């Protein structure tokens, strides 16, 4: 076997291995995520912190925020989160805030924001309350269009606003 043939075999083998690895990477990238884009959650319904029932209702989009009063990271991104809330409310989105456990959030009456405490199973089949804060932007059919685990930073906010724009178009 001469040098040229050997080189060809080596290069073709490497290309094949790289392609296979890339396929594995693409396949596993989605599997490893806590949430997948376009995964369907459910329109949040349930009992609010004040005991009222939040019925199923239609909105162009929903922002779900999982946070607690004690969590430091939940307070760190207030500026970005509030900006997201303002922008989404302009388009009629509904803002739903929830704490993973009872007594982890006090009643903070804010206009156009509901504090959901007791949720149904449909919602929790998709939502994993393993860390706070978690912020989601859902479209009118409750598909996840954007999600952020941890504090919302400026980059995440930009992506959220882009997703909001796509929802509205």
């Amino acid at each position, binding site marked *: 076997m001469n040098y040229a043939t050997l*080189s060809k075999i080596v290069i073709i083998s490497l290309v094949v291995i790289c392609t296979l690895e*890339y396929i594995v990477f693409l396949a596993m990238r989605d599997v490893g995520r806590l949430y997948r884009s376009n995964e369907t959650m459910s329109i949040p319904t349930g*009992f609010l912190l004040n005991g009222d029932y939040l019925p199923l209702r239609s909105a162009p989009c929903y922002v779900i925020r999982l946070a607690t009063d004690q969590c430091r990271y939940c307070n760190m991104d207030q500026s970005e989160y509030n900006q997201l809330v303002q922008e989404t409310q302009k388009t009629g989105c509904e803002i739903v805030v929830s704490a*993973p*456990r009872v007594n982890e959030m006090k009643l903070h009456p804010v206009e156009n924001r509901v504090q959901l405490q007791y949720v149904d199973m449909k919602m*929790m089949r998709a939502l994993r309350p393993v*860390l706070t804060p978690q912020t989601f932007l859902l479209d009118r059919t409750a598909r996840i269009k954007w999600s952020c685990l941890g504090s919302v930073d400026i980059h995440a906010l930009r992506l959220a606003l882009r997703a909001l724009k796509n929802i509205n178009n």
Partner: protein
Amino acid sequence: MRLNNYQVLITIVATLLLLCALIRLLWLDVSLVRSYSSVPDLDVSISASGWWQGYDSAGTLRQFRPNGPEYLVVFVFHSQHAAADMSLWNETMQLLQSRLVPITFWGICDAGLDCNIHKDVASFVILSHLDPYQMRIVAKADATDEILIYNQVNGLVAHLKRAVDPYIMSHAIEQRVR
């Protein structure tokens, strides 16, 4: 075919680049496997802190806060198979009625308030809503077709495979709550 020096050099560089790509992709794959295996989620073996509490289908807040020894059996009441679930759990409850240590049965509706129509037929409590953490634990157990048994201090006693036959189900529960 003979290669000139330039072609040899190109071949070596291309091979090295491919090797780098291979190593880089391998590293990405390994880190993905690592991150996948460490995806945090609640395990049903972790007992929730605080009391089990939630709203029943009538909109009343229910709590499991017994004063003495008592067990709580938590299972999912499937709205699509309501008749079968109703019969299973009503009969299981009946078979376990004569026990010294009482057992409370909570059926968690998988469709919110839709199970409301079954509340008069059920011998057990049907809950429509729990706090997110507890609901996730129940949903995760249901995904593997399991039911959960807690003791009076909210410690997880067992997670059992759900049986179709009430005799088998009651026997399995009986074994764990002696």
